[in-house]
C-alpha cells in the first residue's frame, strides 16, 4: 500500500524549477496526482500531491530538494496523509458566482471582503488580485448555495460597496463561461 504526501514548495523563480522539483519526486518513485503552481512577485510556489509506492519519508524529499540549485533556498512543507485525498476534478457548485471588487489601493481591502464573506457563511472557492497604479482589483469565486435570498445578498453587497467605497459587481459564473468559453457551453445551455 503506497502513501500520499502533500508537498508545498517555494523558491525564487527561474527556468527549470518545475523540472528540478519533479525530478526529485520521480527519482524517489513518486507519481504526481495533482498540482497547482503560481508565480507572484518573482517567487515561484507549487502545491502538489504525490503518491509513492515505497515508504518515502518527508526527510527523503527535503534531502532531494536541498540539492536543487537556486538563488534562494528551496523552502518546502510536507504533510503525510493518513486518509487518501480525492484528486478527481470536482464540479463547481451550481450557485457559483464571481464577485469583482475594485477600489483605490489601501490596507485591509482583502480583509474587508474576507470578513464579509465569512460573516455571510460564504465559502470562497478562488481568489485572484492585481494592483495596477493605485487601483486594487479582487476577483472572488464564491459558492452562494447557502444564501437564502439573492436579493438580500445583493443589497448587503451594495451596502458594503458604499461603506468601503468599492466598485463591486456580482455575476453568475455561467455568464463568464458563456461569454468566454467555446467548448464548455453546451452543458450550461441545456434547458432540460
Amino acid at each position, binding site marked *: 500500500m503506497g502513501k500520499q504526501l502533500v508537498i508545498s514548495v517555494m523558491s525564487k523563480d527561474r527556468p527549470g524549477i518545475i523540472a528540478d522539483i519533479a525530478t526529485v519526486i520521480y527519482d524517489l518513485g513518486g507519481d504526481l496526482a495533482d498540482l497547482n503552481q503560481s508565480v507572484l512577485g518573482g517567487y515561484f510556489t507549487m502545491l502538489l500531491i504525490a503518491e509513492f509506492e515505497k515508504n518515502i519519508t518527508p526527510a527523503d524529499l527535503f534531502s532531494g530538494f536541498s540539492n536543487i540549485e537556486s538563488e534562494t533556498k528551496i523552502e518546502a512543507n510536507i504533510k503525510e496523509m493518513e486518509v487518501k485525498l480525492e484528486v478527481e476534478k470536482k464540479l463547481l457548485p451550481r450557485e457559483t458566482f464571481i464577485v469583482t471588487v475594485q477600489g483605490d489601493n489601501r490596507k485591509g481591502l482583502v480583509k474587508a471582503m474576507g470578513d464579509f464573506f465569512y460573516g455571510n457563511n460564504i465559502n470562497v472557492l478562488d481568489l485572484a488580485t492585481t494592483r495596477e497604479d493605485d487601483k486594487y482589483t479582487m476577483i472572488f469565486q464564491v459558492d452562494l448555495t447557502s444564501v437564502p435570498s439573492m436579493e438580500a445578498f445583493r443589497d448587503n453587497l451594495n451596502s458594503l460597496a458604499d461603506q468601503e467605497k468599492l466598485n463591486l459587481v456580482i455575476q*453568475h459564473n455561467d*455568464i463568464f463561461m458563456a*461569454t468566454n468559453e467555446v467548448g464548455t457551453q453546451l452543458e450550461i445551455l441545456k*434547458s*432540460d
Partner: protein
Amino acid sequence: MFRSDQIMATVEMVQKENLDVRTVTMGINLLDCRRGNVEETCKCVEEKIASYAGNFVEKCNLVAMKYGIPVVNKRISVTPAAFVGAGFTSDEFVMLAKSLDKAAQQAGVDILGGYAAHVEKGITASDLAFIKSIPEALAVTERLCASINVGSSHKGINMDAVAMVGRTVKDLAAQTADSGGFGAAKFVVFCNQPGDNPFMAGAIHGVEEADVVLNVGVSGPGVIAKSLKRIIGKKGRENLKLDDIAEEIKQITFRVTRCGELIGRQVSKELGVEFGVVDLSLAPTPKIGDSVGEILQILGVDDVGAPGSTAIVALLNDAVKKGGIFASKAVGGLSGAFIPVMEDAVLAEAVGKGALTIEKLEAMTCVCSVGLDMVPIPGDVDAATISAIIADEMAIGMVNNKTTAVRLIPVPGKGVGDIVSFGGLFGESPIMEVRNANKSGRFISWGGRIPAPIHSFKN
C-alpha cells in the same frame, strides 16, 4: 478559474456597456382555442395565455436577478389572429383583439403581437373582415400589435393586399389622430414574415411552431458601439482596418448572443417551456447610446444617410450574424440590424439634418433587416403612395429571399420637418419627406399579383 482579464472584460460589458437581454418573448399557439362562438373562443384564449404566461414575467425577473443581466422586455406572441378567428366578422375580430389585450395586461406584458394575417397569395372573406377590423382593433386596445404578410419569395406579392393595407395605414393614423397616428406604429406589413421573431411590432407565433416556445432577442447596438469605441481608443484608429472592426463586432456579438441564449434557456427551464431561437437583431432604443446610427458614425460617416452608409450596414449586419450564429445552438427570427427611424436617436437626428431620406433608408434595407421601420411621414400622403412604398420594400424582400417590412406613420395634421413623439420605446423624429407622392396611383390600382421571382439565373 478564469483569466482575470476575461472576467474584467465581461464585467465591463455588463456594467459600462449596458449588456442586457432585449426581449424574451413567449410564443403561444391559439389554434386549439377555437370554439363555437366568439365569446367562448375569447374565454379560451384568455385562459390559455394565462395558463402559460401567468408567471412568465416573474420568472424572467427571477432569472435576471440571479444572473445580474436585465431582461428589458417581456412579450407574448400568438398564432395569427386571422387563423384563430377564421369566419369571424370584423366586429368579432375586434372582440378577439380586446381579449388578447386583456390577456396581455393580466400577464403583465407591455406588448402582445400576433393580430395578424397571411395573405401573400390570396385573401379569404375572413381575411378581408380581419383586415377591416385592424384600425378599430388597434385604436381600442393598448398592448396589441398587428401585422400582415403580403408577399413571399415563393408566392410573389399580393398587390390587392398591398393596396388594401395602404388604406389601413391611413385609417389607423386617422383613428388615433389624437396621439399623432400612434395606431400606425403598431402595424407592420411584411414580406417573408418569420414565425419565430421575438421583436415587436411584427412578432407572431407561426403555425409551424410548437405549442409554446420562448424566443430571445439579444442585447442592443449600444454594446457594439461602446466596444468599438473602446477598441479604437485602445489601438488607435490608424492601426485598424475595416476587417479588424468586423472581427471586433463578430466577437462582441458572440458574447452578447451567448448571454442571451443562457438567460433565455434558464427562463424556459424555469417555466418548463421549450426554447425556440435567439434572434441576433440589433434593436435600437431612443435612449442615447443605444443606436445603430451611432455605429455608422463610429465607422466613418458623419451623418447616417451619407454615401457609405449602406456599405457599413452590410458589414455590420454580416459580422453580427457570423458572431451570433457560431455562439448559438438555434438562431432565427429576423437576425439583422434594425434601422427604425423614430426609435433610433441618431437616425432621427439625421432626418432632421436632411441627411437621411426614405430612398437611402430603402437602399440600406437591402443589406439588413428589417425594412422601412418607424418612418413618420406627412399626414396628407395618399394611400396609394403608401401602398407603392410598401410594394417597393416588399419587392426587395421577395427578390432577395429576405424579410422586409414597412411601418409607416402618416402623422395626421403634420408636415415635413414637424416633430412627432410617441415617447418611451417608440421614440420621436422629425417627419420625413415623401418625394414623388401622388404619382403611383395607376400602378397600385392594377391589383392582382406580382409573380414570384425566378430562383435561377442569378446574375
